């Protein structure tokens, strides 16, 4: 391999870990941090105590999953219903991780290390990693993503832990805008990072179906908007591809 011959010229593992850590100083990371202030307010208003909000941030990490988890807690859902709703929202992590792994794994990378890396993957970290690893020598890519992901997770745990006690005292306009930042951020980031038309169709269908499902079937609303809405969106995408004459 060409890169193993001049590995000394590519910097040490520590260098690339630090390079990954520097990803915290970027626009997507800044938006994510502010979104977590919004999540903090949501958790606080939903009655989730600060220690559990911090724990949740480290152990679940993905913001949509956490919103559904807190929403389930808020509406008094049982463990099984909460598990199903959260796990359905997290299916998207599988193709994301599966797409990233071939980009970052080197010949000697252990599966155990990749499992740790996979925990750090959520929308923002994934978008950043997919963009940035292309400029990192392959033997150091896993280290780079570890530096990037761990810094994002820890920084957001600190944000949740330190701001929890203040979010209740925010002026109403600030609290309202912070709450709204999360849905707005997700709409913008999912649309701009969605590389398949079916994602855009599903986003619109889910948006329209969500409130209707809540009105008419409040107990199953998330499952309904996910499975029915997603299948409808997939069907529309199949029709779209047929009309374009492509293979289905």
């Amino acid at each position: 391999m060409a890169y193993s011959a001049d590995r000394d010229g590519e910097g040490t593992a520590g260098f690339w870990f630090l390079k990954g850590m520097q990803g915290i100083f970027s626009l997507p990371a800044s938006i994510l941090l502010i979104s977590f202030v919004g999540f903090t307010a949501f958790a606080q208003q939903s009655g989730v105590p600060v220690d559990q909000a911090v724990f949740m941030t480290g152990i679940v990490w993905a913001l949509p999953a956490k919103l559904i988890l807190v929403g389930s807690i808020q509406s008094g859902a049982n463990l099984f219903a909460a598990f199903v709703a959260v796990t359905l929202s997290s299916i998207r992590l599988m193709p994301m991780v599966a797409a990233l792994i071939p980009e970052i794994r080197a010949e000697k990378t252990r599966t155990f290390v990749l499992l740790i890396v996979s925990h750090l993957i959520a929308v923002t970290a994934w978008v950043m990693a997919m963009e940035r690893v292309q400029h990192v020598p392959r033997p150091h890519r896993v280290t780079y993503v570890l530096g990037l992901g761990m810094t994002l997770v820890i920084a957001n745990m600190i944000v949740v832990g330190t701001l929890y006690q203040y979010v209740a005292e925010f002026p109403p306009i600030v609290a309202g805008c912070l709450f709204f930042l999360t849905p707005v951020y997700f709409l913008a980031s999912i649309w701009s990072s969605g590389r398949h038309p079916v994602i855009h169709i599903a986003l619109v269908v889910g948006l329209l179906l969500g409130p209707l499902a809540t009105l008419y079937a409040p107990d199953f609303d998330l499952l309904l908007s996910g499975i029915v809405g997603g299948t409808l969106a997939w069907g529309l995408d199949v029709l779209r591809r047929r009309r374009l004459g492509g293979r289905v």
Partner: protein
Amino acid sequence: MNWQPDAWGYVFIAIAGFLATDIWRWLGVVAGRRLREDSEVLNWVRAVATALVAGVVSKLIVFPTGVLESSPLWLRVGSIAVGALAFFLGRQVPAIGIVSAIAFLGAGLYLLGF
């Protein structure tokens, strides 16, 4: 609110949060190179996953909690519309859409006396 801040809360979060989420991350590692990016099953999975997140997002917009609960629906939907317009005019840069939507919402809340 019957949520309790005790050990059961941690177990609940660990099962319904951590396990429910990381199962898919682990499967993603296992699938790794083998998963076909162009398979029809993956297309359906993408659609369901995205529609589910969109459902959560629209719930937050239409049925918010806290301060926004007492704000008019037209202001919240209007903010999304303004943000979407700016987003698409601004070459789909997320920050442009986000700032526009939040600025519209903030201005509306101010004018309504929040």
